[in-house]
Each structure stands twice: as C-alpha cells, then as structure tokens.
C-alpha cells in the first residue's frame, strides 16, 4: 500500500523538570531566560511512533508542525535530524496568550491548510502545562476521532488504525478509522537519536526569518535545495479568524498568580546519629504513630 501522510504536532517547552532556584524572579514571575528550551518529551515519543510507521509503510511522509516563536524552529530541525520529512512553524503575534482552546483552533486551521493527512500524532501533554487538552481539542475542531494515551500504534492500513493504549490500571487495544488524532504517552518507546546523515543534510534547514540573517551567496542554496526551507506560516495564511486567536480566543483567564507560601511548622532537627534515630523511633512508637 502507499505510504501514510502523518502530521506530528510538537511543542518547544521550557525544561520545567530541572527548575533551579533561580527560575523565579524576585517579583514572582518566571525567569524563562534561565530555563533551557527543549522538545517536549512526549512529543518525541509521538515522533518515534510516526517514524516506526514510516519504517513499516515505505513512502510515508512525516510533517512536523509546531506553533511558537521563531526559536521553535529548533525542534523542527531536531525532528528532521531524526527522520521527519518536512516542517511548518506556525508563528504570529496574534497567537500570544493563547490558552489550549485558542491553540487548538490555530493548529486545526494550520492542519487544514497543510492538506489532507491520514494521522495526526502528538504527545499526550506538554510538561509546561500538563493539561493534556490540545490533542483532544484539535481532534474535536477537525471533527475527527481521537485515541489518547497510545503506547504503540500497531497497524495503520486499509483505512483502519489499531492502537494499544496505556491506562492507569491496564491496557486497551482499540480500532478506529483513518484519519484520526492519536496522543502518545511517555510509556511509549523513546525517540531514536539523530541520524548522522540526516543531521548533515538538514543542518542548514531554516525558516525565512532565520535566512534573513544570512549573506546573499548563502541564500542561493535554498533555491537549489528546497528541502532546506522550513515553512513559516502566519495566522492570515491559515485563514484563521482573529476572534478565536490569542487572548481574545481564550475563554480561560489567569486571575491571580501567587508564590506559594507554606504554613511553616515548628520542626525538630535531628541528625543521622544512632542516638537521634533511636530517640525518634521510640517517640513514634510511644505516640502510636507506628507499631
């Protein structure tokens, strides 16, 4: 059979897993500058599922779509190095302040403008929000079925897709029709590393904005090698209605942000000495806390 057309949705996120003490500014806002920007981990799991389908069904084309600032082109290159075929950066000031609903609307309009596809695959959730909402909301906006928490996409042929899902207390195998939106769990296999050949091939893949910083004789290679063009698309190019974008298109508003202050307890400091631990265990036993 012919290959599949797959769009992988990915997000560049601040690495909130390794938040240091300097991550917060004195005024309580987040100091984004000190947090490294990374490929959202579960989106890498999603990319791997797409790459496995490409291995299984030759002729498959994987397009990476990300929405974010210019810098997010980094994760498109990262995906190209690992085996994606091309990428789109959806970027526009009009998207600033989008909640999950406005984000899903923009992504769904971008998917429509990219063209028909068989599968849309993304990570279950992004580590900077943990909402797990964008996948299902994109599915709803496109009027497609969704299959969440995928651990393995078993087959995608004859207009059917079979997926093994990982739930809290077990697994489920479901069959749906193509096209569909699939969200992938972190329990799915890790993404393969960069391929050396592809890394060489796509090292200079750039968006039009990034290319503006290059000298003229360099620009010529983008005409000779069109695959180095990372397509940059704006709200106007996807025919998005501005009332559904950004802050205006976001029903949820942040009313208040507070630093967390814990009710400090009066605590007793102990050491690891035999005497201290002996005392502690006696105390816990006498109080009937344990035993």
């Amino acid at each position, binding site marked *: 059979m012919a290959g599949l057309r797959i769009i992988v949705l990915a997000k560049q996120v601040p690495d909130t897993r390794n938040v240091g003490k300097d991550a917060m500014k004195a005024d309580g806002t987040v100091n984004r500058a000190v947090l490294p920007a990374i490929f959202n981990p579960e989106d890498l799991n999603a990319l791997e599922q797409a790459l496995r389908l490409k291995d299984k069904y030759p002729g498959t084309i994987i397009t990476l779509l990300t929405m974010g600032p210019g810098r997010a082109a980094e994760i498109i290159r990262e995906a190209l190095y690992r085996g994606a075929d091309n990428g789109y950066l959806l970027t526009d000031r009009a998207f600033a302040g989008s909640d999950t609903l406005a984000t899903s609307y923009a992504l769904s309009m971008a998917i429509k403008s990219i063209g028909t596809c068989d599968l849309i695959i993304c990570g279950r959730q992004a580590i900077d929000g943990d909402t797990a*909402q964008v996948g299902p909301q994109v599915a709803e906006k496109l009027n497609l*079925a969704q299959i969440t928490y995928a651990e393995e996409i078993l087959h995608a042929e004859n207009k059917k897709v079979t997926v093994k899902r990982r739930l809290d*207390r077990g697994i*489920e195998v479901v*069959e749906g029709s193509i096209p569909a939106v699939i969200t992938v769990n972190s329990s799915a296999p890790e993404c393969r590393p960069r391929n050396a050949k592809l890394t060489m091939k796509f090292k200079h893949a750039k968006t039009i904005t990034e290319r503006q910083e290059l000298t003229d004789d360099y620009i010529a290679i983008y005409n000779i090698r069109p695959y180095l063009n990372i397509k940059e698309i704006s709200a106007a190019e996807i025919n998005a209605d501005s009332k559904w974008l950004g802050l205006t298109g976001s029903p949820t508003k942040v009313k208040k*942000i507070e630093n967390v202050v814990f009710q*400090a307890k009066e*605590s007793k*400091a102990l050491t690891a000495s035999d005497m201290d631990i002996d005392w502690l265990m006696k105390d816990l036993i006498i109080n009937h806390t344990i035993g």
Partner: protein
Amino acid sequence: MNNIFVYCEVENGVVADVSLELLTKGRKLANDLKCQLEAVVIGNQLNGVENQLFPFGADIIHIADDARLEPYTTLPHSNLLIKLFEEEKPQIALMGATPIGRDLGPRVSSALLSGLTADCTELAIGGHEDKKENKVYENLLYQIRPAFGGNIIATIINPDNRPQMATVREGVMRKEVFSITHKGEVKPMDVNKYLTDADFVVKVIERHMEKSKVNIKGSPIIIAGGYGVGSKANFELLFDLAKVIGAEVGASRAAVDAGYADHDRQIGQTGVTVRPKLYIACGISGQIQHIAGMQESAMVIAINNDPNAPINKIADYIINGDIAEVLPKMIKYYKQNTK
C-alpha cells in the same frame, strides 16, 4: 437550568470515588450559588445507580444506559455530554482528572467553546473585576492549580463562557455523605436521540484492567522517595522499612520520571493526594506539586541532605543525613524498641 453538573464515572455499576468527591464539592458550590447539583452517569446496566449518588447531594441525575456505552469510548460519551449541556446550559461542569475525564473534558470544552482547567487542587466561588473592560463579574468559579513546574499557584477564571469546566484528581477533594436521606429526581436519557452509529467508530477490541496493586491512598503510613534517593536500587531501602513498619511506598514525580518507581506510586498534583498519619519524605526536595499531594499528612518526617529543602518547612522532624544510613537505622531501632 444553570446548575452545577458532575460527570460521574462508573465501572461495573460502581461509581468511582473521584466522582463522589466531586459531588461532595459540587454540593458545597451549589449551596454557595443557591443552585441545584446534577449528576450525569453514562454506562451499561445502571439500574439503581442513583442510590449511590443521592446521599452525596445530587438533586437531579441524568442516566444514559446502553450496552454500547461501556467500556468508555470518547465519541459517544462526549456527544451525549455536549448535547445535554447545550440543552441544560450548566454554569459549572466538573469531572475527574482521570484517563477518562482528561480524554472527555477537552473534547466537550472544545465543542462548547468553553474554558477548561485541568488538575485543579481547589475550587471556590468568587467575584472578579475586569478594570480594562470595566466589567464586574459575580459568582465565578475560581479554578486553582499549581502552574509552571509548580513554582506558582494560579487562579483561573472563565468570565464569559459557560460551562466553566474543571478536572480534579482523585483524592484531592474529600468524599463526605451529604445526607443519607437526600433524594432527588432521575432523568433517563434517550441514547438514540443523542447518538448515531458514526459515534461508535472507535471500538475496544481488547482490554486488560487490573486492580491497582498499590493502595497508597488508604495507607496510614507512607514512605515516599524523591529524585534524591538516587537510584532504583536505593528505593529498595524504602521498601525494606515499609515492610517492617507496615507502610506503603510512594514517590515524587521526579523519582517516577527517573524510573526509580512506578507511576501508580506517584504522589502530588499529577498523582495521588494522600492524608496519612505519618509521611516519611526521603530525598524529596518538596516542589509545590508534590506538597499539594501530601500537605495534610498528620506528621511529616523529612530525610535529606539539603538543609534548605522546601519540604523541611512543613516537616515535624528533619533528619539531616543520607537515606542509605538513616533508613537501615530506623529499621534497627524500630525492631529494638518493639521487642
């Protein structure tokens, strides 16, 4: 109209704890707003299910009972809810932040163009003044949750869109019977009026569910390990102590992400919320999301090498030391003192 709705999860006729917890919270919110509390149950063979829900304060219970509705699949459940909400226009809709609620909620909120806040740790009613638009809102749902890696607590509101939707993890809210004699009205839903064959396009062809092997939520003593435990092998030290003193082993998200412990042991905002008699935190620094899931423990012992670890602030006892040294000593002196 304009009531509070709770989507109740049901499996084999039994309503999930998280749904009863949400009804308990929903009852209080309904009293604040002087509106009614409505429950929605979608599943198979639901005869008598209302008797599980009335004591928790539900006034109206919508029941969709059909063999095709269990096990859960997205489209039938979401389309039933979407259409019911279009008719009933709830002001608030709550569901569990479970695999089902997190699959269903976003789909429903997208179709209704309403806002949804995931994994709330607190819900309350309050007002809001939009100075820019010069508008004053009353009786909004405050959806409160840690954000941005847990460094901050955010209060989210949906001023203009309805329903105001939120998901809450199991164990975050308390489950309390409102009144054993409370009764209300049952409204069966005509499934065929709401759904078509196209809604059943995704089929479950295989299913293996097991009862959770760990029962962290119900354990009076919990020994939890964080990233500071250092390795999966070191985590065995926690299990050793747990065996001796009759405790359950939990873990922080960082420890689960690092592969030291299984996901079903995760405590915190994106895991389980616990309220044990004794909580022993080993090598846990105490990010807000973790503390959100254990701060109501009656007694906390923190064992770590970092005198500035945030968890120390809420600890009753702080042991400054290495867990590889401290835990075996705890076993030794527990045995010695209980002989």
